[in-house]
C-alpha cells in the first residue's frame, strides 16, 4: 500500500492533507500491520479528514459508520429485508417450507450495513467509524470481532470473512472512555494541534490568497490563545476560518482593531472572548 513513511506524507500532501510525522508514521504502521487505527484528539484537527484522505490516496471506497447514541446491530452490521422476504413467501405459494426457508435467508435478502459492507467484496476499502464515543458500550462488543479478525457472523449464513482487509479508522472525541478491549485491538494516535510551522503550511494551502507575514502572525496568535486557559481552544478549522475572514476583510496586517472585530471567529464562548481580550490587552470587546 505504501512504500515508506515519507511516501505516506507525500501522497497525503497531494490530496491536501498535511500530515505531521506522528500521523504519517501511524498510518504507515496501520497499513503495514493491518491493524485498525484509533484516532483521538480535540474537535477540528482533521480526524475524519484523515480517513477521507487515506481513501483518496489508496483509491479505496470510503465506507462510513456514523455512531450516535442508540446505534445498534441492524444499523451497523446487517439487517434482513423483511418486506422483501414477505413478498418472496407470498410469491412462492406452492413451495415446501424447507425450500422457502433456505431461500429467504440468502444473500439476496440481506441488507449489508457499513461493517458488513466493509469486509465483503474484493475492492479496496477504508472503513471510517466516526465518533465511536457517541455509541453505547454494547456496540463496542459488536466491533471486537470485526476489528480483530475482520469477520462477521450471520447466524443463518455462517461467518463472512474479509478476503481483503479494509483500512479501518475509528475516531473519538473522548466524551466517553472507550473500553480497554477495543483500545488494545487498535493502534492509537492522538492528533494534537499542529506545531507552528505545519499550521502555517496548512493555512497557506487552504487560504492561498493570504499574505505570508499575516499568516505567520495569525498562527502565532492562535498558538498563544491555545496556551490560555480557555473553555474551547481554537482548532485548525478555526484558524483556517479566521484566515478566510481576514482575507474577506481585506486586512493586510494584524492589529488591535482587526483582532477585536474578528476574535469571535476563533473563540466560541463569550467568556473565552473576554478572557482572551484581557490577556491580549484589547480594549473591552
Amino acid at each position: 500500500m505504501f512504500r515508506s513513511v515519507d511516501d505516506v506524507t507525500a501522497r497525503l500532501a497531494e490530496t491536501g492533507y498535511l500530515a505531521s510525522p506522528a500521523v504519517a508514521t501511524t498510518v504507515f504502521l496501520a497499513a503495514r500491520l493491518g491493524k485498525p487505527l484509533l484516532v483521538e484528539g480535540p474537535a477540528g484537527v482533521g480526524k475524519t479528514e484523515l480517513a477521507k484522505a487515506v481513501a483518496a490516496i489508496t483509491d479505496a471506497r470510503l465506507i462510513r459508520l456514523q455512531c450516535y447514541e442508540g446505534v445498534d446491530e441492524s444499523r451497523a452490521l446487517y439487517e434482513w429485508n423483511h418486506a422483501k422476504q414477505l413478498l418472496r413467501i407470498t410469491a412462492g405459494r406452492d413451495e415446501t417450507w424447507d425450500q422457502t426457508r433456505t431461500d429467504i435467508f440468502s444473500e439476496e435478502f440481506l441488507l449489508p450495513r457499513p461493517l458488513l459492507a466493509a469486509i465483503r467484496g474484493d475492492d479496496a476499502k477504508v472503513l471510517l467509524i466516526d465518533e465511536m464515543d457517541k455509541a453505547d458500550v454494547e456496540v463496542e462488543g459488536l466491533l471486537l470481532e470485526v476489528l480483530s479478525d475482520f469477520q462477521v457472523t450471520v447466524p443463518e449464513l455462517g461467518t463472512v470473512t474479509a478476503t481483503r482487509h479494509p483500512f479501518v479508522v475509528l475516531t473519538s472525541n473522548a466524551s466517553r472512555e472507550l473500553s480497554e478491549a477495543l483500545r488494545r485491538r487498535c493502534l492509537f494516535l492522538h492528533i494534537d494541534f499542529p506545531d507552528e510551522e505545519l499550521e502555517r503550511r496548512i493555512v497557506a494551502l487552504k487560504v492561498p490568497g493570504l499574505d505570508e507575514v499575516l499568516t505567520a502572525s495569525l498562527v502565532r496568535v492562535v498558538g498563544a490563545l491555545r496556551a490560555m486557559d480557555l473553555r474551547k481552544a481554537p482548532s485548525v478549522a478555526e484558524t483556517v476560518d479566521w484566515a478566510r475572514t481576514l482575507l474577506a476583510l481585506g486586512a493586510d496586517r494584524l492589529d488591535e482593531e482587526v483582532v477585536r472585530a474578528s476574535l469571535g471567529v476563533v473563540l466560541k464562548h463569550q467568556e473565552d472572548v473576554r478572557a482572551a481580550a484581557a490577556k491580549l490587552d484589547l480594549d473591552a470587546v
Partner: protein
Amino acid sequence: MSTPAHSTAATVPDRVTSLVRALRTHGIRIGTGESVDAARAVAVLGLADRDQLREGLAAALLHDRGQRAVFDPVFDLYFPRRVGAPGGDGPGDGARFEEKDFDRDGLRDRLAEALAASDRAAMAALAAEAVDGLGGYGSAPGSDGFSAQQTLERLRPQTLLARVRAALRAGGGESESGAFTDRVEADEIRRRIEDFRELVRAEARRRVAERRGTDEIARRMVVRTADRADFLYAGRSQLAELRRAVHPLARKLATRLAARRRRAARGHIDLRRTLRGSLSTGGVPMRPVLRRRRPARPELVLLCDVSGSVAGFANFTMLLVQALHDQFSRVRVFAFVNRVDEVTELIARGAADPEGLGGRITTEAAVTGWHGSSDYGGALTEFVERHAAALTSRSSVFVLGDARTNQMDPGLAALRRIARMARRTYWLNPEPRSQWDTGDSVAGAYGQIVPMYECRDARQLSALVGRLLPV
C-alpha cells in the same frame, strides 16, 4: 531470532521488552499482544529515524493520551539520541570540566540565539553541552552523576527572556516593532525556555542512566500524570493542568450519570402493586408492575475545608461540581476553615477565573474566625445551626477535608445530625488511608458516622463521583 553478526538487531527485542517493563512499573497496562505489535513496528520502521520509531512505538503500546507523559521520557532512556558525552565517544569518558573552565557566557549567548530562532536541534545540542559542562557532581565512581537541577541553576535560562526578545526585534525582519504579535511574544519565548529545561532534564537522565543502568533510572524516575498527582502535594502547574481537565472530566461524568439514570429508570419491580394486581389472577403474579420513577433531580450540598493544606483538593472538587451543576436541581457549596459560609455564588461567578477562586473564597467569604487553623467541630456545629435549611430528604452531602481537628472538639453530634437530615452523606478525605487517625486526625471517629473514602487524586475523585453522586 538473534543474529550475532548484527549487535543492534540482537538487542532490539530486548530493548523493546525492557521499555515495556519500565512502562508497566509506571502503571501503564501493556499486554503481550502490544509488545509483539511494538516489535513488529520496529521491524517495519527500522531504527534509522528516531522520531518515526518513537511515534510507532507509542501507537502500538499506548492507549490514551495521558500515558504519553510517561512514555516520552522512558523512550528517551531506552532509545537515546546519542551515547556518551557530546564530542566524546562512548559512555564513561572521565574527562570532566571544572565549572571555571567552562565557557558559561558563551553557552548562554548561543542558547539565546537558538531560542530566538526556535531551533530545536540546536537547543538539544546545547542542553547536552550544558549538562556535560555544568551538571556533573561527585568524583568517585558510583556516587557521581549529573543533575538537571544544578545545570539549570548555573545556566539560568529564564533570565534570557529579555535578550531573546531583543534579538528577535533586531534580527527578525518579519516582526516590525509595534506589531500585534509582540503581545504574545513573551509567552512564546517562555514556552521555548520551558522546552529547553525539559531537554536538559531528559539529557541529565540519559547521562545518569549510562552510569547507573537504564532499568534502574527508568524505574525510579518520577513521572506523574496530572490525574495521578496527589492533591496534597500538587504543584502550581499540576493544579493548573487539573483545572483545565475539569470540563472534559465533567462531560465524561455527565454521560456516566446519564447512563446510570437510564439504567435506574427501568427494571425495578414494585412489589406491592404487583401483588395487588395478582389478586385478580388468583394470587399468581401474571403481570409485573414496574416501579415508577419520579423525574426529580437530586440536590447536592458540598461542605469543603478550604484551609491551606487541603485547599487544592477542595477547589478542584468545587469546580468539578459546578461544571456538573446542570445534572442536579440544586447545588449548594459551603466553605469552612473554622467558620462556615456559603460560597455557591462565588463559584458560579468564578468559572471564568478558576485560578483566583481560592483567594476569593478566603477574602470574600467569612470562613475564618479569630485564628486561621481549621476547626471541624466548630464549623459542623455552625453549619447545623445556621444552614440546616439546606438539608432536605433529597439532598446528598459531601464533606471534603482531611479530618484534622487541631486537637479541638470534633463535633461528632453535629455530623450525626447532618447525616440524619440528609438523604446520604459521604466524606472524601484527600489523605492516604495509612495516615488516617495519626496525629490529630479523627478520621476514624467521623468514619463511623458517615462512610469515608480516600480521595487522593483526580482519578480517584472521578471514580468516586461517578459512583456516589445521586441520580
